[in-house]
């Protein structure tokens, strides 16, 4: 054990719970000056909560603070706001761009920390009336860019820069802080090409060589292995393992991250059905869904199967369904039952017999301020002309409330939706019951294929299994093909016959549910082994 004084940051026994749920358990992390720490972990492993605690994000205080100690630069700290953290010398580069597109690189790098020159009016109206010192701004921006080691004209308006350069602006902004001691990088390379990522990594190493410590969060395992001094693996809110890159390999990291399992498989179904007929064929699909972009995904789904799509958050597993359903701009070739279907047209896709249970239940799955029976029947009424009475020889299509009530009651019983009556407002239902409602809404349409996205997110355990069981039941009973995207590998492996893993917007491999857990992990982390056997080509 080295002496404690050498550490720039020590987080000791840090624990945190949100409304009774422990999300961080007794975390101990130390960072030396000039050290690059790789922080890896699945979604929900606690990476972001940990960083929020470090930065004094208001969410932490609003939910009752945290346990444990943070010692930064020799002093115990508990930042009240991110600005305090920044003032203490901690910088953060976010995954999404935070800058003003219409400003020049200089203005963005020095955003709200512009050097100023004295002006007389500031005596009366305050410092805000000092004049910007443009020359000084330019000098500092150039300095920061120089450290990054890239060619970048600081006078260019950021909007007109190549996308790859935009990320550098943010890194440069943090570098510019004179007292920067610790830099947290949250997936900084996600939008960069390989060569750009290389430059960025080089810049980060240069920075570390100057004594700045770096916490590097990335899901690109190779990058982490190549550039970090130490790797900390988080799992389920605790530090699973600390590794030294030279002593480990991707497989080991993935194992620590995803975990071992004792039994080989948790697959529920007894038989592997023999299915050969293709119902959906997707070729080179591109979807422009913010935060879930799909970059040329291709796969085939067989008729009657339950097909799983897994992967880390933000890698595009949700984009596939949203793109095909016409909810976000999509390009590519999609064939349903051998026939090409038009993209970007929700109505057409619904009419073909494809339906969607969205991950955004409250946003686009339901109308919260309308009663249950309307929510269940709206789509069917619009797409299939159900629940309508024809008046005056078909001139007027009058809504048939009785038929609506009838079918609503059927589904309330079938899916065990807990509610006062079919007229209750959806807003008042629990998350699990809302999810069931979303499914009922889709079943009413009697589709041949259903996309289901994150069906168990945010609902309690009992409802979870009921939702999954219902999906299985409808699949078996009516032969509905189901394509389920989920962040929970466990549930994918419990009910899917094949599981595709998405990484950076593409299918990185398709595995059977019985495959080893670490195989899934490696696919998610972008480690592709040519030898690895995948099924279903």
């Amino acid at each position, binding site marked *: 054990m080295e002496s404690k004084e050498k550490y720039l940051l020590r987080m000791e026994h840090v624990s945190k719970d949100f409304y009774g749920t422990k999300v961080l358990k007794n975390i101990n992390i130390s960072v030396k000056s000039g050290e690059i720490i790789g922080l890896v972990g699945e979604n929900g492993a606690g990476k972001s909560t940990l960083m929020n605690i470090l930065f004094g994000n208001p969410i932490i205080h609003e939910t009752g603070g945290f346990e444990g100690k943070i010692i930064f630069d020799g002093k115990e700290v508990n930042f009240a706001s991110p600005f305090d953290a920044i003032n203490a010398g901690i910088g953060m580069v976010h995954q999404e761009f935070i800058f003003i597109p219409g400003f020049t690189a200089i203005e963005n790098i020095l955003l709200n920390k512009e050097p100023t020159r004295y002006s007389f009016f500031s005596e009366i109206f305050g410092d805000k009336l000092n004049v910007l010192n443009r020359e000084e701004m330019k000098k500092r921006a150039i300095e920061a860019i120089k450290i990054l080691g890239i060619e970048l004209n600081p006078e260019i308006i950021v909007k007109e820069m190549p996308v790859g350069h935009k990320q550098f602006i943010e890194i440069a902004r943090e570098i510019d802080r004179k007292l920067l001691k610790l830099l947290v990088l949250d997936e900084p390379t996600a939008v960069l090409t390989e060569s750009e990522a290389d430059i960025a990594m080089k810049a980060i190493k240069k920075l570390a060589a100057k004594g700045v410590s770096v916490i590097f969060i990335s899901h690109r395992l190779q990058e982490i292995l190549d550039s970090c001094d130490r790797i900390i693996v988080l799992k389920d809110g605790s530090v699973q393992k600390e590794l030294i890159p030279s002593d480990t390999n991707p497989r080991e990291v993935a194992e620590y991250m995803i975990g071992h399992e004792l039994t080989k498989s948790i697959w529920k179904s007894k038989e592997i059905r023999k299915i050969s007929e293709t119902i959906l064929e997707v070729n080179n699909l591109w979807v422009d869904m913010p935060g879930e972009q799909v970059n040329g995904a291709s796969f085939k789904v067989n008729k009657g199967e339950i097909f799983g799509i897994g992967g880390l958050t933000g890698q595009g597993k949700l984009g596939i369904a949203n793109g095909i359903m016409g909810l976000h701009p999509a390009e590519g070739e999609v064939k349903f039952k051998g026939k090409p279907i038009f993209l970007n047209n*929700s*109505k057409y896709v*619904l*009419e073909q017999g494809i339906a969607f249970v969205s991950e955004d239940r409250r946003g*686009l799955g339901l109308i919260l301020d309308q009663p249950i029976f*309307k929510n269940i029947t709206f789509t069917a009424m*619009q797409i299939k002309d159900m629940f309508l009475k024809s008046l005056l020889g078909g001139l007027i299509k*009058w809504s048939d409330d009785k038929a609506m009530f009838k079918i609503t009651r059927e589904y309330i019983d079938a899916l065990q939706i807990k509610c006062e009556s079919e007229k209750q407002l959806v807003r008042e239902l629990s998350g699990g019951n809302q999810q069931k409602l979303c499914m009922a809404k889709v079943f009413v349409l009697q589709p041949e294929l259903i996309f289901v996205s994150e069906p168990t997110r945010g609902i309690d355990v009992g409802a979870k299994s009921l939702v999954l069981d219902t999906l299985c039941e409808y699949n078996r009973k009516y032969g509905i093909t189901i394509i389920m995207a989920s962040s929970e590998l466990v549930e994918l492996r419990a009910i899917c016959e094949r599981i595709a893993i998405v990484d950076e917007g593409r299918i990185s491999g398709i595995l059977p549910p019985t495959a080893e857990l670490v195989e899934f992990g490696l696919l998610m982390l972008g480690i592709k082994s040519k030898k690895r056997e995948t099924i279903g080509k």
Partner: protein
Amino acid sequence: MKKKIQNIIENFGLPRIIIFLFLVLLFILTPFVGIRFDTSINDIIVRFGMNGILVLSLIPMVKTGCGLNFGLQLGIIAGILGAVISIEMEMIGFTGFFTAIGIAIFFAVIFGFLYGLLLNKVKGDEMVVATYVGFSSVSFMSIMWLMLPFKSPNMIWAYGGSGLRTTINTKGYWFHVLTDFLKIKIGNYIFFPSGTILFFAFLTFLVWAFFKTKIGTAMIVVGSNTDYANSCGINVDKMRSISVILSTVIAAIGIIVYQESFGFIQLYTAPLFMAFPAVAALLLGGATVGKASIKNVIIGVFLFQSILTMTPSVVSNIIKSDMSETIRIILSNGMIVYALTRITRVRT
């Protein structure tokens, strides 16, 4: 108990309660300042019938999330066109009235269609664009009233000059055809304009019924949650267009009923600010920028017209000067500002 009261206040809305109490106070004061109670009631009922349909016309657009129709004047212009053309055609009585409505609907559909196209292009900024579309259409029509070749001596300036008069009398054509239809007289001072009220009720029923049909339902979906509507395959722009056309048509009918009851067709700049009182009445009835119902229309028109009728007479009698205009400005515009600052941004 306390919670219950709080609930009632929340449901009914504080401004409405204040205005309601104020109204009660005014009614109590009437005998003391020497105003006849029954004539006041009569005024309110007549004004209710006059203005009800104009306020009702706002409903379809609010329901599809197009916001408050500050471009109501477009419908009014269609209505005026219908009215003046029917007079030009020398149509009298109910024939004239319904001819006016028929022609007005024709124009309203065309205007509404174009207006809808425009509003679909400016999603999120509908209200401010609508305001100026309303204003500019009124001023454009001012030019037209001067230039259109109307011939009827009852409408053009008596002393040479071309163009229509600023006010045209509907007497001799279809003045009070609705008001006097099945009119019930109660005592000397009160009469109940059954025709107007029935006509308002009929249109209200039509609007209610429309929202029970497939298209109507789709429109409600669009207004409640655009993303949901998209995911149901509903053509959002089309539904919005239909609602704009519908609003414009109802407004056109509304102004004809107004003229029928009022006795005059007001041209040129008169319709310029007609959207604001209608919007204010709806908001006073409890509507918000994103949500409105027929209940809001009825409560709103009643409260708003009562205030407008009662305040001037009572207050002027107390302070011996006419504050009605000032009160109207503060009340109606204040209500709109209040509503605009309270809304959460509608999803786009």
